């Protein structure tokens, strides 16, 4: 396993280099000229040329690329086009923190609701609870965030007045609840279903019967033997749904007015702020790779049988 992780860690920078090259080329050939973005429509060619020279846009491409990568390694993604003289890293940092907190809260909700619900529903197979839970998760899974969000706002903000419609106050502010639920709901649905299926699978195993035959209490059997084994596929799915949730988070931040990275990303795309777009793509790629790595490591911890 050690070698496996080592191999993964060695591969990571190579993967990132390839991604960064793709990102760089996309930025280069994307529509619009960054100088024109800055100068608007009325500009003289000489002035544009001077800016290109100053920004190093006239250097050979490979020099531009290595300069970019060199700086990116130091956490410097250059200056924003839209906010000239502002460092992309400075602009992004507070927004990444906000998004990360919101995301963490969503994952928390997903795990907290999804796993027990799926587990419980599997244990109650045959009663009315199980099909109800399955039906509920189907409904939840079918609901897009732009339906969930307004429903939550209408019910909990406008009608009940429990939460403000929008805004951000950090991890321990009540305004985080509605957006976190919105992002988390599709995850809850997926996780519940996977956990349920996985639990049923494990329940049918001989070691469970053996455990019961040994006279262990239901509680011990369920939690030590069933739940732990049932979690393995759930962890995989969790890794995947994190990627899916990121997309939803963009829209949710927009609807709930959260000063996270989602809105900023959209803004940057519309204003062709390539340094920001490139930085976000790279950061996104790194997060996904790291998340996958963590999932793989968790596998091994959960199930010693797994060997690479």
């Amino acid at each position, binding site marked *: 396993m050690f070698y496996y992780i080592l191999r993964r860690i060695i591969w990571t920078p190579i993967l990132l280099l390839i991604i960064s090259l793709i990102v760089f080329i996309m930025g280069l050939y994307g529509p619009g000229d960054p100088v*024109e973005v800055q100068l*608007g429509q009325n500009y003289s060619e000489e002035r544009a040329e001077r*800016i290109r020279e100053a920004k190093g846009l006239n250097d050979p491409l490979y020099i531009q690329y290595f300069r970019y990568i060199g700086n990116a390694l130091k956490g410097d993604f250059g200056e924003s086009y839209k906010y000239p*003289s502002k460092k992309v890293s400075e602009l992004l940092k507070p927004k990444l923190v906000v998004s990360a907190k919101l995301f963490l809260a969503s994952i928390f909700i997903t795990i907290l609701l999804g796993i027990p619900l799926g587990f419980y529903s599997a244990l109650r197979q045959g009663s009315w609870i199980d099909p109800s839970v399955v039906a509920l998760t189907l409904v939840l899974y079918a609901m897009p965030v732009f339906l969930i969000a307004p429903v939550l706002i209408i019910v909990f903000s*406008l009608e009940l007045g429990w939460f403000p419609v*929008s805004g951000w106050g950090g991890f321990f502010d009540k305004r985080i609840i509605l957006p976190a639920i919105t992002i988390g709901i599709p995850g809850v649905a997926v996780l519940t279903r996977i956990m349920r299926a996985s639990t049923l699978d494990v329940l049918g195993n001989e070691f469970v019967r053996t455990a019961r035959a040994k006279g262990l209490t239901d509680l011990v059997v369920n939690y030590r033997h069933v739940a732990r084994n049932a979690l393995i596929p759930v962890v995989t799915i969790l890794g995947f749904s994190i990627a899916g949730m990121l997309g939803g988070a963009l829209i949710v931040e927009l*609807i709930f007015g959260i000063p996270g990275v989602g*809105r900023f990303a959209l803004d940057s795309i519309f204003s062709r702020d390539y340094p920001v777009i490139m930085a976000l793509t790279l950061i996104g790629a790194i997060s996904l790779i790291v998340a996958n790595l963590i999932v793989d490591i968790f596998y091994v911890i959960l199930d010693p049988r797994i060997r690479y």
Partner: protein
Amino acid sequence: MIMNFKKIIIKYFLIISLVGTLISCGSDTDIVTPDLNSSEETSNQEKNIAPGLMTEKKSDDSGDKNRGGVLKRLWADPATLDPHLVTDTTSAGLVVELFSGLVSLNSDLEIVPELAESWNISDDGKVYTFKLKENILFSDGTPITASDFKWSLERAAHPDTESPVASIYLEDIVGSMEVIDGDGSITDISGIKVIDDNTLQLTIDAPKAYFLAKLTYPTAYVVKKENVEQGGDNWTDSPVGTGPFILSEYSIGEVLVIRRNDNYWGEKAKLDGVEFNLAGGVAMAMYENDEIDITGVGLADLERVKDVNDPLNNDLVSVPPSFTVTYIGFNVNEPPFDDLKFRLALNYAVDKQLIASQVYSGLVKPAYGILPPNFPGFSLDITGIGYDPDKAVQLLAESKYADSSNRPPIIVTVPGTGGSPSLDMEVVSDMWDRILGVQVEIQQVEWATYLQDLHRRRLQVWGGSGWQADYPDPQDFIDILFHSNSTNNHGNYTNQEADKLLEDARTEQDVYKRISLYNQAEQLIIDDAPWLPMWFDQEGLALIKPWVKGFNFTPMIVPKMKDVYIDKS
């Protein structure tokens, strides 16, 4: 400035389809037009207000009843807070509250003295001598002198400042173009003279009646030399201004707070401050939950707020349309548009009334001329080209492109992404096809590419964009868009007679004669059909909380926050 029409319409439809009745957004000119990237939000009532505002409120409330309060608005991140670089309404709406110039526009769009107390214009109309007000101060308490104005105007023009609009607003001043188009070594504009601390003299190249109007734009505002030089590229992080408010807090994508400038020359702002929320959110829901004080009303909420039984109905106000014209432009050098009869045929074949009511539900008003209604110089006597299918067919038959086999292919370029061009363009092309049998191809290109091609006059036909007034003078439309030598004449239109009228109008000192010259030119241009004018902006609706007093909606950006106050009693 060129505006993207589709973006504004998309703002309605996309958002409606996204979140049903919940999201609506600013439809009035000064509630910013949140295209996707700029829906906004209030962070929270008390928590996020700069601490200064809260303490100030108490001390100021004693005394004058009509003072105090914090107005909460939706806004988007400004592209810049540097007055010399401002090109968009989002930035301008903030900059006019923080900075000011010699003259300003009031809510009725009249030119009024700001930092200048008075001015006189020489008999030949070329020399403007401004007398500055006594004892005027920057927000940091230092005095403003005529030299500050000279420095500021020269800074705006200097190539290192990279102002995209300096050439538009300052070109008339003698010697300004040498600086703007120079390599940076020339800094002195010969037409700007400091007579004494309180007197500034501007010499322009010809008597131009619209010159004062241009000075109301932020490019001509005064900034403080030390502030700009010490702050470097980031000087607008803590700007020293001259407007009724000063910047108190700004975090990109979150919130921007301005508070009262106690060194303002005139009557001090009544509000303690204004909190502009930049983080986005569902405007209508936020308004209902008292998280913001003003919001525009989108199509989705229209019926609800118009219902007299709905509590929101009491807050409803109408918003004057912005001075915008949307059009389809023809490049008159490109066949088949080099033929007047062909252009006229296309004009007569479009039923704008039908599109306005069916496609846009009355959100737009069909345009038959160039100047928007109520804009200075707008005339009801202008005869536009209405819908007349028979005449269209007849004109096409008379044109040299009557036979489709010798008609070059027509490509209409529209801006945008997503693959589906604006609906109105599709309907127009369908009308051309059904009535005239003229088929066109619609090509959608990304906005930046569109602007570039437009600027380089590479487009044969273009739609989906419009022109919005920069200052209240007909020159801003008719001269800038149609004079043969204008850089914004994207369709290569030339008419010597019109050029002559426009040149005469530039220097004509008699207001009525001047307007009449523009009217004549406008009529000539319409008859030549270099455009198919499509829409003017229509009156919009907004909601404003009953405790917000003294707020005026205006069709152009003018400083207006200083007269506003909050009265919750």
